[in-house]
């Protein structure tokens, strides 16, 4: 009897819905606050110090940019597995060009263009060739990942020009430059999603592509643009990473893909309709960033960090799925 009540979905949605909904809607934000509290209690001297807060923000800056890119694609109802390797390829292309003597601004522009082109290819395959986003972006992820190795010859590229370091290492007002870039990208994406007809079109296509089409929206063009924007934003993230590290490796930004998807999924749980949204994504990024930083400070191994990141993704996806099941 007890068991059947526990496991029957119907009884759960009937009895627990109001409580469950509240916990889940604020749950992700509560989780962030709890994480902060726990680490602050364990290491009160270090965790909340100005220096460490600046550290956390600097560490999550690039993830913020790539997660913003992922948010756009997921608003449209697709997802992009290639954002990580696209960031890597853009960064390493820029580095390789600079080492070959190309002026810094031109190298950066070409790096951005490379990412944009990858995004356009994704958009073409998904919107016009009608491949599933999974297959199309898995393929470009693999292809682009291989191209990065070709560009870098499989070695880490050092000795980049001094003026390039301005992007990732300068500290205006004592604040690391990547934070400014992250805020700018996040702000632009938020404004576009919230206040422009393009944002409305993206949400409409993600809500129901057929309804959007029959309402006069150019669905294919809209999806194409979302992937293109994601490619461009990923390129920004990849180039900043190379500048911050002072080197370009052949797989440097690849791991951001999974973290970005996790962040967006976490963010989807905080609004009622369960859609991807930038505010939620930032909360998701915050959870991942605080956890990694906190575990570092308490001296947990990177292996444990990886396990916990995986568990967080499971928790996020489960929450989203529960929300969807309940709404249906």
């Amino acid at each position, binding site marked *: 009897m007890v068991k059947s009540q526990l496991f029957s979905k119907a009884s759960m949605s009937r009895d627990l819905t109001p409580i469950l909904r509240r916990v889940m809607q604020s749950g992700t934000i509560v989780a962030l606050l709890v994480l902060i509290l726990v680490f602050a209690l364990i290491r009160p001297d270090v965790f909340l110090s100005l220096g460490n807060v600046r550290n956390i923000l600097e560490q999550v800056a690039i993830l913020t940019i790539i997660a913003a890119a992922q948010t756009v694609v997921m608003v449209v109802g697709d997802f992009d597995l290639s954002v990580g390797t696209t960031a890597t390829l853009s960064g390493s292309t820029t580095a390789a060009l600079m080492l070959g003597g190309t002026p810094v601004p031109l190298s950066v522009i070409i790096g951005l263009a490379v990412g944009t082109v990858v995004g356009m290819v994704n958009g073409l395959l998904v919107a016009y060739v009608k491949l599933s986003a999974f297959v199309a972006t898995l393929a470009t992820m693999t292809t682009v990942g291989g191209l990065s190795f070709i560009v870098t010859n499989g070695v880490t590229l050092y000795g980049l020009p001094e003026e390039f370091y301005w992007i990732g290492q300068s500290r205006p007002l004592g604040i690391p430059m990547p934070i400014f870039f992250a805020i700018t990208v996040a702000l632009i994406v938020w404004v576009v999603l919230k206040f*422009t007809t393009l944002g409305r079109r993206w949400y409409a296509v993600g*809500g129901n592509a057929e309804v959007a089409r029959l309402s006069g929206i150019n669905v294919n063009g809209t999806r194409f643009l979302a992937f293109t924007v994601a490619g461009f934003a990923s390129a920004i993230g990849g180039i900043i990473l190379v500048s911050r590290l002072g080197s370009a490796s052949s797989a440097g930004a690849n791991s951001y893909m999974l973290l970005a998807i996790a962040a967006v999924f976490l963010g989807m749980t905080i609004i009622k309709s369960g859609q991807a949204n930038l505010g939620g994504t930032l909360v998701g990024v915050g959870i991942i960033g605080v956890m990694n930083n906190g575990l570092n400070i308490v001296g947990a191994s990177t292996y444990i960090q990886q396990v916990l990141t995986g568990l967080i993704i499971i928790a996020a996806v489960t929450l989203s799925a529960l929300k969807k099941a309940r709404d249906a």
Partner: protein
Amino acid sequence: MTARNAPSTESTSPAATPALEVRDIVKRFDGVLALNGVQLSVQPGEIHAVLGENGAGKSTLIKIMTGVYAPDSGEVLLDGEPVELANVRTAHRLGIVALYQELSIVPTISVAENILLGDQTPSRGGLVNWRALRKGAKLQLDRLNQRIALGRLAGDLSPVQQTMVAVARALATDARVLILDEPTASLSDLETADLFAVLRSLRDQGVAIIYVSHRLEEVFELCDRLTIMRNGETIITKRVADTTVDEVISTMVGRSQGELYPPRNTARGEAVLAVEGLNGRRVKDVSLQAFAGEVLGIGGLAGSGRSELLRLLSGAQKSSSGTISVRGVVLPHVLSVGRALAAGVALVPEERRSQGVILSAAIQENVAVANLGSVSTAGWVSSGRITDLARRTVAELQIKARGPRQPVGQLSGGNQQKVVLGKMLARRPQVLLMDEPTRGIDIGTRAEIYRLIRELVASGTTVVAVSSELPELIGISDRILIMHEGRVSGEVLAAEADDEVLLAYCYGRVA
């Protein structure tokens, strides 16, 4: 004439026990009566047609006979014994098999595997016995006199071959009652003849066949007896030889219309929509005109091209040739919904939940989606204008909602339909296309929508409406075009129309 509820009195051989019999079946959905005391009796070695208009209850009856639904009351007898059809598997095991066009085969595996699917697959210790599989499959195809390569992928077969494979599978499970629902919908005349030969040979082997079709000619060619359903009741069962097409049509028809429809009090103005030689996938060479101040109704059977015609006109589907013009202005040949809307042609689509509204989004978002131009300046949306527009829509159409921010999924079907209508009316279309304007909507909201259509027409809008319900078609239209196999088969003034004439056109018969 036989009295209702006693159809078995005309059975061909009264002594024989029916292979399948249903008695006094009643079925309600959410309190709505779908089947009301249905009687059906099918003899072994008989092909028995079940006829009726859309919504008469044929599909529900099939689903009860195959264990998909349980009846609220009444019983199903197999060989004279009452049986409990708890689910599809039970019905299958007892030998009652229904063939649906699209569900009948697995396209990605071979013909032989399809014929001996699941439990029927011969195996030894968990491994498929391929030799026995091919032998068993061939045996069934031989019974049907069919030569289909056993190794081919079922998905590569022609529609009639796929149907044959499905029939062969039914035989492999020792089916004794075979139910076919519109089996010839995608078959050519030649293929249909082929299928009929097989069905006749199965009949002669003692299989009981229930044949559901809209195509009366086929019923008269193939079937031994027929049962006509109307409004969830079985009206009559007759030997096919003892009746005529006209008698069948007039029996299928026959309902009161009530005061649901507002009077046709609008004067017809100049031609607004003109279509010349329009072709699509089903639609063939359609030309028509629709006038200001007029509701043009489009009727026809499912698959006649009536819905496709609206989709072509609205840009939802590309036409292969033909021209569409609005007040003399020719629309672009490569039409999109956006271009059609810009030219003043708007579509309220057939499927509300999958085509009309984003269920998870608020009313105001749904209205805005079709009106982004009017709520924005240079690409920047004004949330104030979005809310204003939604408020106006809610007020004008009297949508019952808490406010413009309420998710559409929480509204009743009728109010959802009003949202779809409202978002298109906000575009102030010159031509409003409506596909099934009141499907699945309560009677009160239906009356409101009918009144609204009349008001629109009075203000000069041209309405073109498709409906599968003849009373609705007659009730809302000024003029009616009937489509049959992609072409316009007849034109009638609604004031002079009756169901029989329209049905005759629907079936492609010249009245």
